Structures are given as structure tokens and as C-alpha cells.
């Protein structure tokens, strides 16, 4: 058991830290202006690509860094520590679509898509959830009928982040309605903007419209876009989801530690009663507990990475971390709301910081964090599903 990194790993850390301090953008694009955001992300991803930091976990043969698990951990830590902006419009391509193609795509699919994803030239979105298939994803009903060289898709997807700016979608469709529900699904690359597709934005409680619903009315997708085998889409999708629950959330976890430290600093300067919030014993203890919890989250993450480094596969224990993290994050931002008190009341749902007076801009960003965090116990497997996974797969409780 050891908490020290090797000299080689420390050199990598120094190198990454120096590069990030020189190159990470100092500004952030406006939260709710998707066009500006996607241009910003593309430019930042291109900078990362030129420097050899794009696709840190992707194999070298596909243009990635091919970094060891320890190097990935160090990269994500330094990325968060530098306060570097996460190119979130590229998340699905880099962390779902790309890795799925690497695992299951044909040579032609890989050759066409992977370089574009890695350079940030294309935005991918996810077409998994449906109005009737959320936690029960296997119950999806968007149909695809084979007609010559095409799949003809009819149905609806929902909670599709960035559908309105994406060029491609990883789409799950039902190709065999007679088969047991997990056996009749196909994973297909859907180019966005095909005839018969309609996209409607959904405004969230946090104010933005990152996500959408997508309607398909006899949309023709070439059969050549199927990834893996026809009707094997559930297995293809699971390879993506286990990835998502493995390393892709690392930087989010590291970032939370940084936010707690910022919250402590904020409490030091925020008046409460006759003193400051940090001078208040109750607030102080709650901050201390959160600080302890994010520290434990790091130890937990280190342990999970250690385990994966030995076995080579993401561990089921990732569900424990995911559940702990998502609820912890909500507690952090909820405490921020209490510390800020009346400061939180000025907040613009359209996310234009310019319309909130400068002295409230800091508080407004905490409000946005607080509201956005409501999604963290819903997306990528709700907390209830995470508890089922832990109960069924880790503890072996009866279904």
C-alpha cells in the first residue's frame, strides 16, 4: 500500500501542470450560448490534440494518448486543479461514442469518425433514453425496420444533450420486437439532420436548454452505420456505460474538492450574524464534514483506480463512488446556498451573468451549480438504479 506516485509519474504531473498553466483557457464561454460554447470547445480540444493530450485514455493507434491509468488519474487531477474548462459539448463523443467505436466499430467506422471526434471537429449526442424508457432503458420502443440498405427509424428520444448542435448521435433502436427486450436492440450511428428528424429543446430547472427531445419519422439511416451486430446493441451500449461509470467522472470528483475549498474561502468572507459564516460553529462543522467527505472520495477513487490497475477492467465498485459522489455534490451546493443567504436571490434563469450585478455573479454561479446538481442523481443511472446495482451485483441480494 502506497500513496506516493513514482518519479516518472511525478515528472508527468509536472509536465502536465506546466502545460495546463500555459495553455488552459483563462476564460469560459457563456453557459447558455451553445454556439459560442461549441466553437470554444472545438478550439480548446484542437489545442489539446496538437499538444498530444486529446483522448488521454484512448489507445495510441487511434490517435489517443494511451496513458496508463495512473497518468489518466494525474491528468484529471491536474486538469481540475488548474480550473481548466471541460469541453462538455464534446463529452459524448470523447467518452461514449469514441470508446464504443474503438471497442466495437468496424475499421471503416473507426477511420472515419475517430480522428474527427478526437480533434473536436464533431459533436456527438446520445439517443438512449425515451419517454417510456428511462431507468428501464431495455424497454425502449423506437423502431427500426430494415428496408434494403437502410434502417428506417420511427420513434422518439429524450434527454438528448446537445442534439441541436450535434453532427452525430449514438442511437439505440429496436430492430427485433419479437425478441426478449434486451436482445432486439441495435446500436447505430445516426447523422443528425436527416430528413424526418425533428429536434425540440427542453428547458431545464437550471435555466439552460442543453438537452432536447428528438423525433424520428421514417428516418433512413444506412445499414453500414450499425455498430457491432444487428440486435446486439444492448451489449454494445453496456461497453459504453461501464466506461462512463469507470474513469470518465474522475475529473468531476477532483473538481468537487476544489469547489469545497472555494466554499470554505467564501465562508471566511461571508457575513453571518455578528461574524462570518466560517466563524459559525454549525456552518464550520458542516464544512469540515464536507471537506472530510471529499477527501474520502479521493481515497475511494484512488482505491478504485488501484483495483482497476490490477484487474484491467472497471470495477463494479464504481457504482459506490458514483452514488456517494452524486449525493455529496448536492450537499456541497446546498450548503453553499445557506452560506450565501440572501446573496442567492439575484439569479438569472437565462444564465446571462451580465444581467446580474457583478457583486452577485459569484453567488449566481453557485446557484447554477446547485440547480444543475439536481441532475447528478438522475443522469447516467439514477441514484435508485445505482442502489439496485449495488444491492444486486455487489451484495448479491435477491431481485
Amino acid at each position, binding site marked *: *500500500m*502506497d*500513496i*506516493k*506516485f513514482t518519479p516518472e*509519474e511525478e515528472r508527468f504531473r509536472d509536465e502536465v501542470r506546466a502545460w495546463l498553466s500555459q495553455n488552459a483557457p483563462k476564460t469560459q464561454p457563456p453557459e447558455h450560448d451553445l454556439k459560442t460554447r461549441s466553437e470554444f470547445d472545438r478550439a480548446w480540444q484542437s489545442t489539446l490534440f496538437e499538444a498530444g493530450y486529446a483522448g488521454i485514455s484512448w489507445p495510441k493507434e487511434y490517435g489517443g494518448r494511451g496513458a496508463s491509468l*495512473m497518468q489518466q*488519474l494525474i491528468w484529471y487531477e491536474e486538469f481540475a486543479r488548474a480550473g481548466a474548462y471541460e469541453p462538455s459539448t464534446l463529452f459524448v463523443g470523447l467518452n461514449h461514442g469514441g470508446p464504443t467505436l474503438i471497442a466495437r466499430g468496424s475499421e471503416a467506422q473507426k477511420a472515419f469518425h475517430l480522428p474527427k471526434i478526437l480533434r473536436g471537429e464533431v459533436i456527438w449526442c446520445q439517443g438512449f433514453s425515451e419517454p417510456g424508457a428511462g431507468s428501464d432503458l431495455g424497454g425502449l420502443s423506437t423502431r427500426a425496420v430494415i428496408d434494403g440498405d437502410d434502417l428506417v427509424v420511427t420513434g422518439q428520444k429524450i434527454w438528448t444533450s446537445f442534439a441541436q448542435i450535434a453532427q452525430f448521435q449514438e442511437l439505440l433502436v429496436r430492430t427485433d420486437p419479437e425478441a426478449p427486450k434486451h436482445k432486439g436492440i441495435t446500436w447505430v450511428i445516426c447523422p443528425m439532420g436527416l430528413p424526418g428528424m425533428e429536434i425540440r429543446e427542453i428547458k431545464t430547472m437550471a435555466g439552460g436548454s442543453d438537452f432536447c427531445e428528438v423525433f424520428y419519422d421514417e428516418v433512413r439511416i444506412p445499414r453500414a452505420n450499425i455498430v457491432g451486430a444487428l440486435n446486439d446493441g444492448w451489449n454494445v451500449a453496456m461497453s459504453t456505460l461501464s466506461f462512463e461509470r469507470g474513469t470518465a467522472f474522475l475529473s468531476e470528483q477532483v473538481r468537487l474538492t476544489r469547489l469545497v475549498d472555494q466554499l*470554505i474561502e467564501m465562508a*471566511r468572507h461571508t457575513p453571518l450574524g455578528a461574524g462570518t459564516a*466560517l*466563524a459559525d*460553529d454549525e456552518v*464550520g*462543522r458542516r*464544512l*469540515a*464534514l464536507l*471537506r*472530510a*467527505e471529499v*477527501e*474520502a*472520495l*479521493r*481515497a*475511494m477513487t*484512488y*482505491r478504485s*483506480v*488501484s*483495483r482497476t*490497475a*490490477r484487474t484491467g477492467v472497471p470495477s463494479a*465498485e464504481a457504482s*459506490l*463512488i458514483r*452514488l*456517494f459522489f452524486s449525493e455529496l455534490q448536492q450537499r456541497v451546493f446546498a450548503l453553499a446556498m445557506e452560506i450565501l443567504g440572501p446573496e442567492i436571490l439575484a439569479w438569472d434563469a437565462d444564465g446571462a451573468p451580465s444581467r446580474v450585478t457583478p457583486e452577485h455573479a459569484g453567488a449566481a454561479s453557485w446557484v447554477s451549480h446547485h440547480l444543475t446538481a439536481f441532475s447528478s442523481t438522475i443522469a447516467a443511472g439514477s441514484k*435508485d438504479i*445505482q*442502489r*439496485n446495482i*449495488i*444491492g*444486486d451485483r*455487489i*451484495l*448479491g*441480494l*435477491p*431481485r
Partner: protein
Amino acid sequence: MDLMPTAEQDAIRESVRAFLDKELPMSRVRALMGAPADAYSDLWRGAASLGFFGLGLPERRGGAGYSLTEEMVLCEELGRTVAPGPWLGTILAAHALAEAGNDGSALGQLLAGELRAAACIDPWGGALRVEGERVTGTRNSVLGAGLADGFLVVDDAAVLFVPAHRAVSVAAVPSLDATNPVGSVTFRDAPCRILSRDRDAAARLRRAAIVLSCADAVGGTARTVEMSVEYAKVRQQFGKPIGSFQAVKHRCADMAVRAEVARSATIYATVSARDATADADFQAAVAKVLCANAYLQNAADNVQNHGGMGYTWECDAHLYVKRARAFDATFGSRRTQLDALVAQFRAA
């Protein structure tokens, strides 16, 4: 960086568990609760013969040459089975004596299982007076006091070993946690050995006490998950095992999360203490806070999961509730640790 156990640590765990399964089944644990000190003699010698008490000591001092991380594994197993007796006090006393060197006989007796020591670390009872090689004062609520024939005393800046003597009296009282019977220890100009006058040495022992007691809590916390899961698989209501109901399943899932949080924090804190890193005290405080939260809540949930049975004396669930209370109350409670963290933030 690697926070998973080494092959050697796995082997240690297996051998400790095998010993405890044989020598300390729950029936024996219960028999020892409230039993007099001499009931422990065979158990102690058996554990000593496997090297339990010198695991973290250098070989030249009669130890196995391992470190705090291997003692963590041992304590986790002891906690898992709520092992009665002053295990931690004996391990810590051996540490302090080995560090002081040139021991005489006490260290040898501890390692041979012929001597049991209780650790007087919490300052309850007021200031101690040390004059020459004599100590006067009282330490209250000392875990395992009535079962010990030697006392490790860790004061602010002094570490003492006080052997049993007519100038040392122990007033044992019936105890909430009967696996760790407490008592007041009074020294009246009692002969002692001053092992160190170094603040760092005292701080190291205090840290070791925290992380190894956390390891005990980790073992207990993990055991409550096992107990609940085992029971939820077989207990049937409404024609189904209760573990299939989400109300129970999700409670078990939360218990598993807490156990993993506590374990991760404890491993990190133990390695930090072993390596004497700059943030070792901070990590120990973090581990204590999270282990106390995890152990207390898991022990309570375990009672709940066992329903009416869980409320009985016969069911083992309450033993963990009580051990968790004793854990939180000693060596700096979670509230004390939180306040220490807050003081750090304020001073920064």
C-alpha cells in the same frame, strides 16, 4: 500509488481470520464479555504465538518487521469480530516500548502475550504529575483497564509505561461496550518508565491510536453489511426474502457505500501515518469522522434490518452499536475532530 492490499497483507488477513474464527467465535466473544482478566490468558498467548503484537515492530525488537498498514489489517479483523480485550493498548504499548529501545522485560512480555496493556490516551481525569520515574494522577474511562497489567500513558509531551504495582489501582465499572470494559486508573506516585519526552513521539502514538481504532471500526462497519445481507437473503416476509424489497436493499446499498468510504479513508490515513506525511493528522481526523459516521449509522441500520430480532440481546447486532459508540467516544470523537478541522480552516 496503490491502495489495494499486497499479497502479504492478504496472507496476514487470512491467518488472522483463521485464528479468530477458531479461537473467538461469537459464543466465545460473549463468554469473555464481563469475564475476569485471567480468562484471556490462553487467547492472548495464542495471538502472541502468531506474532499479533509485534506485527509492526522491527525484527531487532522482536517484531515481524512489517508496519502500521499490516497492523491495520489485524485491527480490521479484530473489529470485524468485536474481539474483546485491550488489543489496541497492547499493540500501542509495544510500539512505544520498542521505540524507546533498551527495554528490559516489558516489551518481551507484551510480545509473548504474558502482559496486556491498556492505553490511557484521552486526557480525562486531569493533569498527571510526573516526578522522576514516578507518576501521580488519574485517567478515567480507559478502555480495557480492568483486563490490563500495564498502562501506556500518552500525555501532551510525555509517553510513559506504568506496570501493575500496588501504587496503581483500577476501578473497573460495568461497561456499555462489554468487549472493551472501561475503568478509572489511579496512579499514586507509581513507578513508571518514561519512554519519551518528545511531542512528536506522543503525536505519532495518538495518530496510530486513531488510525488503528478506525481500522477496528472499518472491520465492524463491513461486518454489519455482511450480517444485514446474509439476513436479508434468508428472512422471508410477504412470501419473499426481505432483501428483494428496495426499502431493505437500498439501505444495504447505503451501508456498503459507507463501508467503502470508511475503508478508503482509513487506508489513506494509515499509509499517511506510516509515512509520517505532512498531512497525516488531517488524514487521521478525516478517517475518524467518516469511520464514526459509517460505523454508528451502519450499526443502527443493521439493528433495523434484523427487525424484532435485532432489538434482542441474543442477536449480535447490538454489540456493534455499542462498539461503535465506544469508538466514537474515545481518542477524539468525530465532533472533536470536526472542530479541529474547523480550527485549521479558521487559522489558514
